[in-house]
């Protein structure tokens, strides 16, 4: 019997034509025809996640780690609404995703049918756009639009809602005849040279920045995720070296510049280094490269970089004025704009500026020493040794949200671009484990590390099953302080130690790991850490390492919310109210 090609088959074919190799998803009623088509489509690999939120995070991790568009799939109703947090995470950090959701048949749309949700409506604020397929001929058109829109300008998530009756309808012969043409079109439009939407680089603005840089005695570069996404981090390093420019890297730009480089000032902002923050406050020129100057980076808006002309290279025309108004704004993809700028940068040195910068050398004052002396294990101390292993293994590290996330940011040694994955803008607890699954699927030859707190880890703990089923050799490190550490820190500092709803009891994580068939280790004193990390590194399959630390340790430095960057506090002597 000849099988009739359906809408679901057509979508599968077109996904392949768009270069999709992997889908992260979870099936259900309204997406069943698509899964049936997938059953026959052996060149599309499907990773069965245990929760749709995790599917969106996995697609996000896959995209951040590989530079490709991540694709996730869910059914209608609860499956679709479960994607929301993952879409919002990707929207905030500019990660290109295509999310495909099943929908009830067109004939019952709007009748509160079983598992019906207006998912295009629900996801409007957290997607770049949402399409609902209303007829067969929409499929090729909307899929092409979704893939272009996801990567065009500032990347982000796009949703395609796919009613069940169109999934099962036969494709008309006329449309079938169009399919090879559609595939060809995709190849053509993916060539950036023929892309008509490419913007002209504003030569006058670039010239203005070059003049500012030439006159500047205290310049500073700030690198964000945009630089990593555009793949210009090598050129940025060359320019920084040529013109002797101090470099600070935001949370999402940490893997854009080597931490050990002599020009690197480290992380700016709320938990940034003294050198980076004081550098910004005393610079006469701050050049932002693909960073959106968000509130956690700039501190008090009116007092950000008070002596500096601020230049922003950004792909988003909506960036100026959201937080700060840059003096010069250069619109465009850094891969187009930065080489034009780089060409004009001349050799220069700034010895006086560096003498000043080197004065700001105070280290944070954690409660625990950062070296492994006998005694209880410290959180930041533990993270330092874990991140060294990440770097030595040439690995990727995915962090969750909270104290451990900031410690990893502060202690991250040299890693290659696309090797530090974290939810920066949305601050999504539960991100790390599913994102690591996506990163590992996209990079089978690399070691992928998860560093999570005990709070965030439990928000997507069910994904341990996916890790085992796909046999992904993740190194999962849980920094367990038996509480929601960052919330506790704020309650200690800003709510007079009224610890409200922060204590977490259990479970025994090694037992949990063993229930999933994952090797488990636990360390609670500093002197054992290196030895256990050796064993963890040598494990063949997935492994979980629980590091038990005190709940008392806080993250320093801290720029309290609403304070200027120069108001950073190095240790536990904070004002009680801000």
């Amino acid at each position, binding site marked *: 019997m000849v099988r009739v090609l359906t809408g679901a088959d057509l979508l599968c074919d077109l996904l392949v034509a768009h270069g999709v190799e992997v889908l992260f998803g979870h099936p259900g009623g309204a997406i069943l025809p698509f899964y049936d088509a997938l059953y026959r489509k052996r060149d599309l690999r499907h990773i069965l996640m245990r929760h749709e939120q995790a599917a969106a995070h996995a697609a996000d991790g896959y995209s951040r780690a590989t530079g490709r568009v991540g694709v996730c799939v869910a059914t209608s109703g609860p499956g679709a609404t479960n994607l929301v947090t993952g879409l919002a995470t990707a929207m905030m950090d500019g990660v290109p995703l295509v999310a495909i959701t099943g929908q009830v048949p067109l004939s019952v749309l709007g009748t509160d049918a079983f598992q019906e949700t207006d998912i295009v*409506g629900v996801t409007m604020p957290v997607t770049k756009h949402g399409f609902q397929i209303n007829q067969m001929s929409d499929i090729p058109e909307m899929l092409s639009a979704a893939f272009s*829109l996801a990567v065009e300008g500032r990347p982000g998530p796009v949703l395609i809602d796919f009613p069940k009756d169109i999934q099962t309808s036969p494709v008309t012969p006329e449309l079938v005849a169009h399919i090879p043409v559609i595939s060809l079109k995709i190849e053509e439009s993916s060539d950036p040279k023929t892309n008509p939407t490419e913007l002209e680089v504003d030569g006058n603005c670039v010239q203005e920045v070059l003049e500012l840089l030439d006159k500047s005695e205290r310049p500073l570069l700030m690198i964000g995720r945009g630089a990593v996404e555009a793949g210009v981090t090598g050129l940025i390093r060359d320019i920084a070296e040529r013109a002797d420019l101090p470099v600070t890297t935001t949370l999402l730009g940490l893997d854009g510049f080597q931490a050990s480089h002599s020009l690197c000032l480290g992380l700016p902002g709320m938990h940034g280094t003294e050198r980076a923050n004081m550098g910004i406050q005393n610079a006469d020129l701050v050049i932002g490269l693909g960073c959106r100057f968000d509130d956690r980076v700039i501190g008090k808006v009116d007092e950000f970089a008070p002596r500096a002309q601020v230049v922003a290279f950004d792909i988003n025309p*909506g960036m100026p004025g959201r937080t700060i108004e840059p003096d010069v704004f250069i619109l465009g993809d850094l891969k187009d704009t930065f080489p034009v700028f780089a060409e004009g940068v001349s050799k220069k040195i700034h010895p006086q500026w560096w003498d000043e910068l080197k004065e700001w050398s105070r280290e944070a004052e954690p409660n625990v020493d950062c070296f492994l002396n006998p005694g209880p294990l410290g959180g930041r101390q533990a993270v330092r040794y874990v991140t060294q292993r990440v770097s030595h293994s040439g690995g990727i590290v995915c962090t969750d949200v909270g104290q451990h996330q900031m410690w990893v940011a502060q202690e991250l040694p040299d890693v290659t671009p696309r090797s530090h994955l974290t939810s920066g803008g949305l601050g999504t607890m539960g991100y790390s484990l599913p994102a690591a699954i996506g990163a590992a699927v996209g990079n089978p030859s690399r070691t992928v590390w998860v560093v999570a707190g005990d709070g965030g880890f439990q928000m997507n703990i069910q994904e341990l099953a996916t890790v085992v089923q796909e046999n992904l050799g993740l190194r999962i490190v849980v920094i367990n302080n038996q509480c929601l550490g960052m919330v506790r820190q704020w309650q200690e500092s800003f709510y007079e130690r009224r610890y409200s709803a922060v204590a977490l009891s259990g479970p025994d994580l090694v037992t949990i790991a063993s229930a999933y068939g994952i090797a488990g280790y636990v360390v609670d004193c500093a002197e054992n850490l290196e030895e256990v990390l050796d064993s963890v590194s040598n494990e063949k399959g997935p492994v979980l390492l629980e590091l038990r630390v005190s709940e008392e340790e806080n993250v320093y430095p801290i720029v309290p919310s609403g304070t200027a960057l120069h108001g950073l506090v190095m240790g536990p002597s904070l004002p009680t109210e801000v």
Partner: protein
Amino acid sequence: MMSKYTLFVGLKNEAGALERVLGVLRRRAINIDSLTLTKESGEMYRVIMSVTDEVVQAGPDRIVKELSSLFMVMSAEHLEDS
């Protein structure tokens, strides 16, 4: 900051397009004083809205930029009320 202004938006003639525009306003607590929508030739709507932007005070330039970034918006500009 100008708290009352008029927005002129050219919109694709598709279901949900106006809702996207309204979402940009709602998110910033901007209230609509009047709204006119006309279908123009081809695939376009022309929307004229007078708004009050007192809570967030995002300002007309910001709103025009945010509207311009929407997939369904073909053009956006503003006129300040005197």
